[in-house]
């Protein structure tokens, strides 16, 4: 596909999700094309501060994407394209706000100006028309746009960031920083409350805030920044879950588990997936506790089983761990859950097997071993008893559905 067609497709795809505009400049920053309806106005905003000079200087020496931020937190992704002839280009995507410098923060700053009502409404209307992207989302757009232009795959660590003393000063004035922190703190409090309540709508809320938010600069390396932010998030979730009724031991075990998971993540996508799993895991557990008729001892047993599925825990081990006698647990579990402990464990192991089968990285044999089935045939037999097909067939069927 020709470059222009690729860019046109990319432009349309981005517009499916965000009103994010595409700009094409020559290497002297003369505008050649844009799909923005307010070309002149937005260009004026871009040219204020030292964005223009910074980009021109950057484009002379680099070709990787640069994330630009102007004096009031509006952002752009810019990618210079150098060609052998004189027809180099600079492609720009933006403007947008990042979630930690959201339009609400800027709106709050505007409110201090005590503008007349008509002007305030115009300003507010314009701000609300700008998209708000999470950090991971605009990283992805930068990487994808670069691929569109060059056919070369890059990672987050290849991205550059505008480093202008002037922009830095303006972008983070003391008053604004305070407002940002307040905004993020409010968002964080909502998040913590939702976890504590086991509120299943938490994903909607999390979609509004970036993984990193305004947690501050946790690392100079963007990958590490995301990982550190995720670690902070895990701690907040686990503590809120404890307040919501989850046993501290379970919460701390989960914290260790997800901490390890974060370190094992190789890509931003892995981190995103893990983040979502972690959020749902904590919230679902609190939700179950708060909305279940199951008694606390049995809930503890269920949690223990969930956390130790890959060890295929015996009733004896569970009994020692929970400090209830085997006979009491056996009777109580059956009364409340309707099935014996052993049957419940088998059900949960097979459910976990389906999760692992969806992930094509492990073979059926490896999954069987991981879940402590005594042999592949034993795993297949139990699996077929519940799902009607052997694991490999199940994987094929679900791979087809996923295509």
């Amino acid at each position, binding site marked *: 596909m020709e470059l222009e067609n690729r860019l046109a497709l990319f432009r349309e795809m981005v517009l499916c999700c965000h009103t994010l505009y595409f700009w094409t400049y020559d290497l002297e920053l003369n505008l050649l094309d844009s799909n923005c309806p307010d070309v*002149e106005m937005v260009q*004026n905003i871009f040219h204020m501060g030292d964005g223009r000079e910074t980009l021109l200087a950057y484009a002379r020496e680099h070709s990787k994407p640069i994330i630009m931020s102007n004096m*009031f937190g509006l952002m752009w992704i810019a990618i210079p394209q150098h060609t052998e002839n004189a027809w180099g280009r600079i492609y720009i995507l933006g403007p947008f706000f990042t979630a930690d410098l959201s339009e609400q923060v800027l709106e709050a700053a505007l409110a201090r100006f005590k*503008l007349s009502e008509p002007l305030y409404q*115009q300003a507010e209307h314009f701000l609300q028309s700008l998209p708000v992207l999470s950090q991971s989302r605009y990283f992805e757009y930068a990487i994808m746009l670069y691929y569109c232009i060059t056919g070369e795959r890059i990672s987050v660590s290849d991205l550059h960031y505008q480093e202008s003393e002037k922009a830095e000063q303006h972008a983070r004035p003391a008053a604004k920083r305070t407002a940002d922190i307040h905004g993020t703190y409010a968002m964080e409090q909502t998040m913590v409350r939702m976890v504590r309540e086991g509120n299943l709508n938490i994903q909607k809320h999390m979609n509004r805030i970036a993984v990193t938010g305004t947690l501050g600069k946790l690392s100079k390396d963007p990958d590490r920044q995301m990982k550190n932010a995720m670690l902070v998030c895990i701690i907040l979730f686990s503590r809120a879950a404890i307040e919501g009724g989850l046993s501290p031991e379970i919460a701390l075990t989960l914290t260790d588990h997800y901490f390890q998971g974060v370190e094992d993540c190789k890509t931003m996508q892995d981190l995103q997936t893990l983040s979502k799993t972690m959020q749902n895991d904590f919230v679902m557990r609190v939700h179950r506790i708060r909305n279940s008729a199951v008694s606390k001892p049995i809930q503890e047993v269920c949690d223990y089983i969930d956390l130790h599925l890959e060890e295929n825990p015996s009733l004896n081990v569970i009994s020692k761990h929970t400090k209830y006698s085997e006979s009491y647990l056996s009777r109580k579990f059956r009364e409340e859950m309707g099935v014996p402990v052993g049957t419940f464990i088998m059900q949960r192991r097979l459910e976990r097997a389906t999760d692992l089968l969806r992930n094509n990285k492990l073979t059926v044999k490896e999954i069987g071993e991981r879940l402590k089935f005594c042999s592949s045939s034993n795993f297949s037999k139990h699996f077929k008893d519940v799902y009607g097909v052997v694991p490999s067939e199940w994987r094929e069927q679900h791979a087809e559905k996923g295509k």
Partner: protein
Amino acid sequence: MILRDRSMLAEFVHAAEKCHGEVYYEDSLGDKLNLKSALSQFLLTIILYKADDVEYWISFEEEDRALLLPYLKEKSDP
């Protein structure tokens, strides 16, 4: 005085930043913006493009006239 051409807004704002004295946007609705502030410059852009029927004027210190004049005109000028 008002802006000669709003397409020169970014250049005007850069010139305003270099002025010795303050440069203000004022309008008939009672708004007053100090154009050395980044947020005011942002607001001015929105005002000029989205609320262009508002009667406004730019005020500045006499000593900065030469710096700003290339971007400004009298309201009565065509």
